[in-house]
């Protein structure tokens, strides 16, 4: 966990460039999407990440579910942030998160029943995903709604990006397919290691290595 805190005040707003890229919400957005990416940067919510990234379809639905819950949760928590008594704020987060997750789970069961089956308990387990709690406690509780939503959007899309890139790698190597369609010719044997959760550890490790070396290069400059 490099720096999972909010510290939106510490963000350096560049003086050059387009106006859009100088706003605070844009900075917060990019912070969650790239610099503090929930998987590769903060390394949060790994359990479900390792489990659902074997197929692109699963990863897509899972990350959309997390993003939706994250945005709604941040919006609600930040809207009622002045009403929440400090001592019970964790309970308040849990109540809001579980309500949202159960609702999303119901919707997935109705609209994409097969994928909901494939994801098994992991949709319901979004409730315990640290990313949600983390963003509520570190950001939404101290910031106005608009900025909190941008932060949630950034972190959510960062999560989506991470899951999709992991799934891309794992599905091609593990199953030889993409979104369920076979792309590698039949003769080539697949590495079934990448289709099982232990293989996900290797994939994730390789990804964090690559991303961190890119990041380091940038800061060194």
């Amino acid at each position, binding site marked *: 966990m490099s720096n999972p805190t909010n510290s939106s005040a510490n963000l350096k707003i560049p003086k050059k460039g387009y106006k859009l890229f100088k706003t605070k919400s844009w900075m917060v957005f990019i912070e969650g999407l790239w610099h503090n990416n929930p998987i590769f940067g903060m390394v949060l919510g790994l359990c479900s990440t390792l489990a659902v990234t074997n197929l692109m379809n699963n990863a897509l639905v899972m990350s959309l579910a997390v993003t939706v819950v994250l945005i709604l949760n941040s919006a609600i928590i930040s809207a009622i942030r002045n*009403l929440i*008594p400090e001592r019970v704020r964790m*309970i*308040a987060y849990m109540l809001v998160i579980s*309500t949202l997750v*159960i*609702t999303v789970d*119901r*919707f997935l069961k109705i609209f994409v029943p*097969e994928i909901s089956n494939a994801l098994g308990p992991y949709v319901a387990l979004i409730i315990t995903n640290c990313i949600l709690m983390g963003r509520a406690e570190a950001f939404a509780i101290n910031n106005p709604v608009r900025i909190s939503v941008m932060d949630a959007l950034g972190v959510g899309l960062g999560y989506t990006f991470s899951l999709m890139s992991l799934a891309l790698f794992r599905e091609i190597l593990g199953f030889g397919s993409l979104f369920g369609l076979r792309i590698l010719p039949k003769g080539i044997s697949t590495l079934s290691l990448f289709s099982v959760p232990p293989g996900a550890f290797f994939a994730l490790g390789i990804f964090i290595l690559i991303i961190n070396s890119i990041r380091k290069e940038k800061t060194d400059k």
Partner: protein
Amino acid sequence: MRNIKMLIFLMVLSTLCVLLLTGANILYQKASAVFNVRLYAVILDLFKIPVRVQSANEKPTGDEIKNVFLNNFEIKNVGGKTYYIAKKKDRGVIAFKTSGPGLWSTIEILLAVYPNFEKLYGLRVISQAETPGLGGRIAERAFQKRFTDVELTPTLRIVKFASAPNEVDAITGASKTSKALEVIINRAIKEVKHAFKEVANPKEERGGREK
């Protein structure tokens, strides 16, 4: 005072959450009722039972389908699975939904067997996502009709040239999907046989388990 404020806050928040969940649950139940009606329509179609519609042009409504279905079938839960047993036309035939892995996707089918479990009454594919044009052809009516009155002893087989009464012609170029379908059907038949035998002789079955 602070404690009271806390209590009130939590009560209000919990109430709001409960209301939202209740709403979501009501929606969910309504939606699953729609799924049931779709299944009912498939079963009625398999048994060739028409749904009378008031005006000739319109499609039957969900309620109309449901009423006709409940008039013609008995819904029975055995061992956690739902079976639909014909009450009037083709009395005693057992219809049920089952699913299993195909080549790429989960194949969901409706099966109907005669009460002696020796012959298949018919088959309908409810959902599949096999290779379009090859395995995906299991969704075609002509293929599904091949399963009418096929014998199940010793097991049903999907083969190149069907010659025996327990054999069905496979789809050319889709041997994997055909094989998968064969496995799904035979497993489902075994399960339904087992489930209904347990209902008929519960004591015997229990004795067997104690060993």
